[in-house]
């Protein structure tokens, strides 16, 4: 259940950034989470309420932008969609690839009052 650590990491970023900007209330938080990042969104949702309790995020709406996995074959340069981290190149079957996107785990923005 490392999603709890992730949620607490999000809370910490929000607390730090709002403290710097002298703000007490966040109305919305935007997150970017890649499908290859290793975070289960369901688990994150499950721990969210307890993680944000008594923090600036307590009343914030959480919006998650899911970023789909994409890779580029190191052997034939084909770009392809990845559902799993071990998907091989659909063109040549190679397992050597670079991951172009899908590993994101980011706090994108906070909407504050």
């Amino acid at each position, binding site marked *: *259940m*490392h999603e*709890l*650590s*992730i*949620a*607490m*990491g*999000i*809370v*910490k*970023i929000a607390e*730090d*950034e*709002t403290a*710097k*900007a002298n*703000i007490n209330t966040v*109305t919305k938080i*935007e*997150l970017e989470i890649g499908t290859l*990042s*290793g*975070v289960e969104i369901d688990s994150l949702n499950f*721990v969210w309420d*307890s*993680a944000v*309790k008594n923090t600036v995020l307590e009343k914030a709406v959480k*919006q998650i932008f899911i970023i789909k996995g994409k890779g580029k074959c190191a052997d034939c340069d084909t770009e392809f969609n990845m559902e*799993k*981290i*071990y998907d*091989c190149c659909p063109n040549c079957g190679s*397992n*050597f690839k670079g991951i172009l996107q899908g590993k994101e*785990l*980011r*706090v*994108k*923005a*906070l*909407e*504050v*009052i």
Partner: protein
Amino acid sequence: MCGTCGCGSDSNGPTIIKPGEEKHTHQEHRHHHDGHSHDHDHHHDGHSHSHDEHHHHNGHSHSHSHSHDPKHKILEIEQDILQNNEVLAARNRGFFEAKNVFALNLVSSPGSGKTSILERTLADLKNEIPFYVIEGDQQTLNDANRIDALSIPVIQINTGKGCHLESDMVFDAVKQLEMKNDSILMIENVGNLVCPSMFDLGENKRVVIISTTEGEDKPIKYPDMFHTSDICIINKIDLIPYLNIDIQKLKDYALQVNPNLQFFEVSATTGEGMENWYKWLRENIS
């Protein structure tokens, strides 16, 4: 609430203990994250002045339809959630590099033989190479005591309810180890094939251990750990005659996840295959 252990109070958080010093256990209870909160304050300072100029809703109404209320404003953060862990991992890495310490992060399911491989390695090489060990478990000093019995300096991190080590715990543990230059640091992570994969500890190499009793498709069942590892040790090869496992198939699955993995096939019990592993360790500190 503590983000590492998920407990409601600090009293269940991670503790760092040396064998023989159990009595100090309860003094260490604190949120280990608090001490480092200053570390990345500088990160966004350089950008903060421009946030207002980049108001999303000025030109991009798609995602902020309700944000025209002049009281609301958007703080563009764009910060990696694991950044705090990664900043501290980088600090660990710099420290290891300066001291020429070769640091390994040993990960596996519970029971695949991490501690047994460690014990055997330490017993066979301790007169040749200085070793240090950090043991991660949810509870007990049992593993640290096994290492301590070999007269190797060891620190136990008990993560409480936590399912993985994080770089700040390793940072705190390393401070107590007083390591000599040109040595090897073995960090035995919590037995868990899922969560530790996301947390860089600052190690030079990550070593995933799988045993022959676990089934050949484990690498694709738990791909993240195999994807982030450099070395794969296949343990308990002495049991192969009694098992229905195809080692080549296991390797093929692992290579599908990570084509750069390097394998060692060993038995920590009989010592078979350990010499190749030792050879690799020696090459990496010379």
